[in-house]
């Protein structure tokens, strides 16, 4: 035995280690295997399958019970049974018939084949005979052939009667059998029709229920899927067991590669490309792996059903299964707009993450970057998904390098903007629409460049002639200091007494002095006419209510905003209703709330403004109501009786010392200290005021919203917001702001204080609520997402005055903030695919332009347009009750007839040329309306865009070509005239040219002579046919029943139309 080689290791020990590590490796392998196999999504799929089985089973059993209780079904089944019994009773007869048929069929076959045989023999001879004649003519041989042929023919024909008789026999027998079978067939068909619901559910169950799938098939199972075991059918029980086992086997590890039940479901959208920095790949969304009911109408949850997708009956009876199902299984709340194949956004063309963002390829909860809507949701998710909630890394739901995390559900509509950026009213994106409307209304674009709004006029009134409008400089100072103290719902934001300047009140007052000084120094004179007539305030009030002022202006001394704000318990449907209500409020508050007009300005200014608003401000959106001198004077008299005053604001008088320190600060930047000192010494107060005033206006960016002399070409002060949604979160300065969870007593819960969660939406929200927050040590309450220590928060950032944050506070409510954040998140720097956006045809572009103008000029304050608006209606009801003496019931019922006409279908209704001239110079059409269409100060481009908008909205050709030229015989003309005047008595109400109806003008109807210029001929036909359909609430009665229209009536309608079009 050779001596062992010298080693530095022991084989035996090594063997042990080898064995141990092998075992560990095997175990690890198994562990890996198990871990890979037991993925969370499978749990969801299993649970959903069970839900599906339970739901379908319930439905199936219900359907079956319903079927069994149906008298019709019972009768059919009874009859079917009877029919079968009849067949049985006549069994012998039927059997006999069948035997006879069989026999006759045999005979028939025999005869037929024999006939065929003989015919072939005959054919052969016949051929030979024909050949012989053709070649040799008639001779002895042919004679023999002929004889033979005739013989064969005879034999052949002998069989014909026999064949005919068996055929007839067969037919008779079959006819005799037919009624029995037909009846049976009919009844079976009827039964099938009645059972179709049940059968559909049954076949579905056989796909999902593991016990019923077809691995171990059994006839009993096929027939009575759930009743069999009650009767103890052994075969069925076995079949169920086999099915169950088989279903488990197909999903076993490794085996599941062939045809598993549980598998990852993915949607590939080839034309949407995802940019992963180094590669561009098609979008793949695997969301439906867990969101299994997302496309299914039968999984709509009650809470989501604010769109009438379910009928109320179904809604009420929603079963417990749906009430308690997990959230991922719920259907999309707007299947009419999304996912389904007939919606505008089918799932196979859009996927999920194109709109919702997030990482669509992920198959686990955190890898798709779900984001919670609230602190509460974050806690729930943490618990449900076994994520640590208290550990050091609270943002477990952040995937660090994924730059497009999913939008929290409450901001989900942000995803619409990328493709719908041109639109103003986004269907299904009501929150986003509100956000955009708020951005427009509060004039964000004045200080922040936003590409969508580059062409828009500034939102505030022009200050170029302010000294003529507001004589009282003190009022202006107080207003700048605290606008909401004078008018609670003003859009003018607050610049002072905010988080980072509330401790410098004396300085603030001097700033206000300087700004006011600058404005008044640079104000130019406004030539005002004298009020020619003494106005009557009472008449003025009536006019204010009647003429339509309230489509844009309210007089509301008290704030009502709280009642419409979101609360933490609101369901989605309630939130939608509140958003809609808020839109309505915004419409009727388009112009300023007029409380305090009499304090703010002079009667003379009000009079001149009302007579022609463009005189004072050529850019104003305020239209001209074509008021007579008397009307304007009356309105003025009324408006100056409104005398709201400041409640607490009182700017202190000028203080030269403080003023000079401000001046010093502004001078410091460019000069040496000594130079500054000496320069200040030489300056008078007025000089300092003028200098700092200009600097401050420039600092705060007042010129973003107001025209101010000297700032005509200044750039906006704020950051560009065009792509703010794409701005990286790490580029946002969160300062030292913290968040914490508070208990009921207002104490911070232990260990809950930490830095504010770094997401762009939480930054946006805090910035909007308290624009100066980042300079302070504020603590945000995690639950309410509002500052908890508002009174104690201090400025902690060391900043010079000019470095401090300076955005003003707009006092947004939670609802408004949520809407604006939604819009901001939507401002992303991503190119929308041309195949996904609404095609950029001129038609669509004009529709979008029209929508935008309609919102800017508030058409929907008065009119119903694209199913939105008509917000003035409650004011009309109010007017009818308080100024026209009608009772509430009646007033409510007739409000529609006294409201501005709804503009749905306006493009089909009026001729384009007429509409153009109407915008330019509105004229009264409906004599009973007190409310007045004003003359808007539109540019040529705007009027043209609006006219086209109405045409294209109704898919009309532009421009309109009048191709109906009525021609009459004299008789036809007389008949039509008679129809109009005598039979239908149209002139009881309608004016015809100069011919007025009787009674008071309040009951008259539009002049028929206008129709030729105004209306489209085809519309007149539709109008006569069913006026209520086109304009619900109209006073025009219907003369015809559109459902049962006779040809005679059709002719009448056309005769009337032609007659009307011929009126001179």
């Amino acid at each position, binding site marked *: 035995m050779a001596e062992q080689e010298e080693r530095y290791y022991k084989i035996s020990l090594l063997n042990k280690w080898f064995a141990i590590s092998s075992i560990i490796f095997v175990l690890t392998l198994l562990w890996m295997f198990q871990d890979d196999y037991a993925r969370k999504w499978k749990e969801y799929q299993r649970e959903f399958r069970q839900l599906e089985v339970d739901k379908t089973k319930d439905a199936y059993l219900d359907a079956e019970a319903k079927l*069994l209780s149906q*008298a*019709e*079904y*019972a*009768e059919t*089944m*009874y009859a079917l*049974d009877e029919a079968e019994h009849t067949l049985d009773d006549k069994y012998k007869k039927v059997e006999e018939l069948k035997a006879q048929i069989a026999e006759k069929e045999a005979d028939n076959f025999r005869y037929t084949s024999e006939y065929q045989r003989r015919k072939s023999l005959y054919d052969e001879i016949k051929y030979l005979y024909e050949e012989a004649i053709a070649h040799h003519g008639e001779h002895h041989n042919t004679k023999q052939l002929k004889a033979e042929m005739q013989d064969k023919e005879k034999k052949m024909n002998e069989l014909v009667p026999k064949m005919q008789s068996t055929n007839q026999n067969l037919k008779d027998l079959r006819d005799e059998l037919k009624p029995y079978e037909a009846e049976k067939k009919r009844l079976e068909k009827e039964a099938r029709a009645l059972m179709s619901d049940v059968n559909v559910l049954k076949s579905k169950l056989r796909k999902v229920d593991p016990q019923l799938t077809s*691995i*171990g*098939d*059994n*006839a*009993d199972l096929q*027939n*009575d899927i759930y009743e069999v075991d009650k009767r103890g*059918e*052994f*075969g*069925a*029980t*076995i*079949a169920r*067991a*086999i099915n169950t*086992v*088989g279903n488990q*086997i197909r999903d*076993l590890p*490794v*085996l599941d590669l062939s045809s598993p039940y549980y598998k990852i479901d993915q949607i590939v959208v080839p034309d949407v490309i995802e940019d992963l920095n180094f590669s561009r790949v098609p979008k793949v969304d695997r969301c439906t792996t867990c969101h299994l009911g997302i496309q299914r109408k039968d999984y709509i949850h009650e809470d989501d059903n604010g769109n009438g997708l379910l009928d109320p009956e179904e809604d009420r009876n929603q079963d417990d299964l749906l009430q308690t199902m997990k959230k991922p299984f719920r259907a999309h709340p707007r299947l009419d707009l999304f996912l389904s194949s007939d919606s505008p956004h089918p799932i196979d063309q859009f996927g999920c993450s194109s709109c919702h963002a997030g990482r669509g390829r992920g198959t686990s909860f955190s890898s798709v970057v779900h984001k919670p809507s609230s602190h509460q949701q974050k806690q729930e998710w943490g618990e449900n998904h076994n994520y640590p909630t208290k550990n050091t890394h609270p943002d477990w739901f952040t995937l660090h390098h994924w730059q497009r995390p999913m939008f929290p559900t409450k901001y989900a509509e942000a995803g619409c903007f990328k493709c719908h950026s041109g639109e103003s009213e986004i269907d299904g994106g009501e929150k986003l629409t509100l956000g955009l409307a708020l951005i427009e209304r509060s004039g964000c674009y004045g200080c922040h460049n936003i590409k969508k709004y580059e062409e828009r006029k500034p939102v505030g009134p022009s200050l170029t002639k302010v000294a003529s409008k507001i004589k009282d400089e003190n009022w202006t100072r107080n207003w700048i200091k605290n606008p909401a103290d004078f008018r609670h719902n003003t859009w003018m934001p607050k610049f002072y007494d905010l988080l980072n300047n509330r401790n410098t009140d004396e300085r603030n007052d001097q700033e206000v002095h300087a700004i006011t000084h600058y404005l008044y120094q640079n104000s130019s004179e406004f030539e005002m006419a004298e009020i020619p007539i003494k106005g009557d305030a009472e008449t003025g009030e009536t006019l204010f209510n009647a003429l339509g002022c309230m489509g844009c202006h309210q007089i509301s001394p008290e704030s009502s905003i709280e009642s419409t704000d979101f609360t933490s318990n609101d369901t989605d449907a309630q939130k939608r209703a509140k958003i809609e209500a808020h839109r309505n409020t915004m419409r009727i508050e388009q112009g300023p709330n007029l409380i305090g007009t009499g304090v703010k300005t002079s009667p003379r200014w009000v009079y001149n403004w009302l007579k022609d608003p463009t005189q004072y401000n050529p850019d104003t959106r305020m239209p001209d109501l074509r008021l007579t001198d008397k009307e304007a004077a009356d309105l003025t008299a009324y408006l100056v009786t409104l005398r709201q005053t400041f409640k607490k604001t009182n700017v202190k008088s000028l203080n030269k010392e403080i003023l000079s320190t401000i001046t010093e600060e502004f001078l410091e930047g460019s000069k040496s200290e000594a130079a500054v000192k000496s320069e200040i010494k030489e300056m008078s107060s007025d000089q300092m005021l003028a200098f700092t005033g200009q600097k401050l206006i420039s600092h705060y960016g007042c010129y973003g919203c107001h025209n101010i002399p000297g700032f005509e070409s200044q750039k906006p002060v704020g950051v560009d917001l065009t792509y703010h949604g794409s701005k990286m979160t790490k580029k946002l300065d969160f300062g030292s702001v913290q968040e914490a969870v508070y208990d009921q007593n207002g104490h911070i819960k232990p260990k809950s204080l930490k830095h504010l969660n770094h997401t762009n939406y939480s930054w946006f929200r805090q910035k909007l609520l308290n624009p100066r927050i980042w300079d302070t040590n504020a603590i945000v309450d995690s639950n309410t997402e509002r500052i908890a220590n508002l009174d104690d928060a201090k400025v902690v950032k060391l900043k010079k005055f000019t470095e401090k944050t300076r955005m003003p506070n707009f006092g947004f409510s939670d609802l408004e903030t949520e809407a604006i954040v939604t819009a901001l998140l939507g401002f992303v720097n991503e190119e929308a695919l041309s195949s996904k956006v609404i095609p950029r045809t001129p038609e669509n572009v004009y529709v979008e332009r029209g929508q935008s103008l309609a919102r800017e000029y508030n058409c929907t304050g008065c009119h119903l347009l694209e199913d939105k608006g008509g917000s003035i209606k409650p004011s009309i009801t109010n007017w009818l009750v308080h100024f026209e003496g009608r*009772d509430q*019931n*009646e007033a409510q*019922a*007739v409000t529609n*007839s006294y409201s501005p006409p709804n503009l749905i279908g306006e493009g089909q209704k009026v001729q384009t040329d007429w509409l153009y001239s109407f915008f330019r110079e509105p004229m009264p059409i409906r004599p009973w309306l007190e409310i007045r269409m004003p003359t808007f100060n539109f540019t040529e481009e705007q009027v043209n865009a609006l006219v086209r908008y109405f045409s294209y909205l109704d898919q009309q050709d532009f421009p309109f070509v009048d191709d109906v030229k009525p021609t009459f015989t004299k008789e036809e003309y007389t008949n039509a005239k008679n129809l109009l005047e005598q*039979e*239908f*008595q149209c002139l*009881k*109400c309608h004016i015809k040219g100069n011919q007025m109806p*009787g*009674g*008071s003008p*309040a*009951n008259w109807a539009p002049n028929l002579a206008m129709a030729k210029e105004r209306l489209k001929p085809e519309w007149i036909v539709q109008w006569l046919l069913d*006026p*209520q359909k086109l304009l*619900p*609430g*109209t*006073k*025009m*009665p*219907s*003369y015809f029943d559109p459902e049962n229209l006779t040809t005679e009536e059709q002719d009448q309608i056309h005769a009337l139309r032609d007659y009307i079009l011929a009126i001179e």
Partner: protein
Amino acid sequence: MKTRFVAIVFVVTAISILIGCGGSDKPTERRKPIPKRPSTSASTIRTATASTGTASIIGKITFEGKAPKKWTKSLAEEMAVESACIAGHSDDPVSDSIVLGNDKQLANVFVHITKGIPNNAKYAIPSAPVVIDQKGCMYRPHVVGAMAGQEIKILNSDGIMHNVHALPSKNAEFNKAMPKTKKTFSHIFEEAEPIFPIKCDVHPWMGGYIGILNHPFFNVTDIDGKFEIRDLPAGTYDVEAWHEKLGTQKQTVTVVDGKPHTLNFTLSRS
């Protein structure tokens, strides 16, 4: 290893299927148990109606406050536009919004039961229509009640151009022209909806009200202010009296079979 595993599974499955099939040598055609022929025909079930009773509520409604002026003159002036309107009146036309009897009894009050009737109760719908006539350019009667599904027949005794403009909120609105040639027009409201106005846009003073209910327990007071709700099952009910100008009042009553219960209301002008 994998192949063997699959093979084993395959064999096990195959055997199970065989066993499964072995159990299925029963007749393949099995149908549901045949239900008994129903003893009553289905049609009788469908038209079954909830039961009525023998209790009733009777009462009187009086007006409190200053009697309104009769506006005789102004109405006659307005009506002067159309001679047929005046012709329809034997005396001077009187406004029909607050109509009082000799002793301040209030007519045209719609009295109906708002609570106490089972929600799913179905009552037979009277085949006779409710008739409203347009006479002297007024609706006669001024206030009517009808059941949902009951025909409402509108006549035009005036023989001039009227239009009937109904302004319900639940039911569909309609506005039907009744030129002189059209003598009658019928309409059926399908939904219960107390109570909504009808009006004529040609003659602005013409107004009336229709109340639609799911049950027959309603009445409109006559010129003596009297109403009667009959055939009521015993029970406790909320009774509401509605007047177009004077608003609504509600009372709760308990009625017993066979006995009329008296219930009076006083409506006042605020």
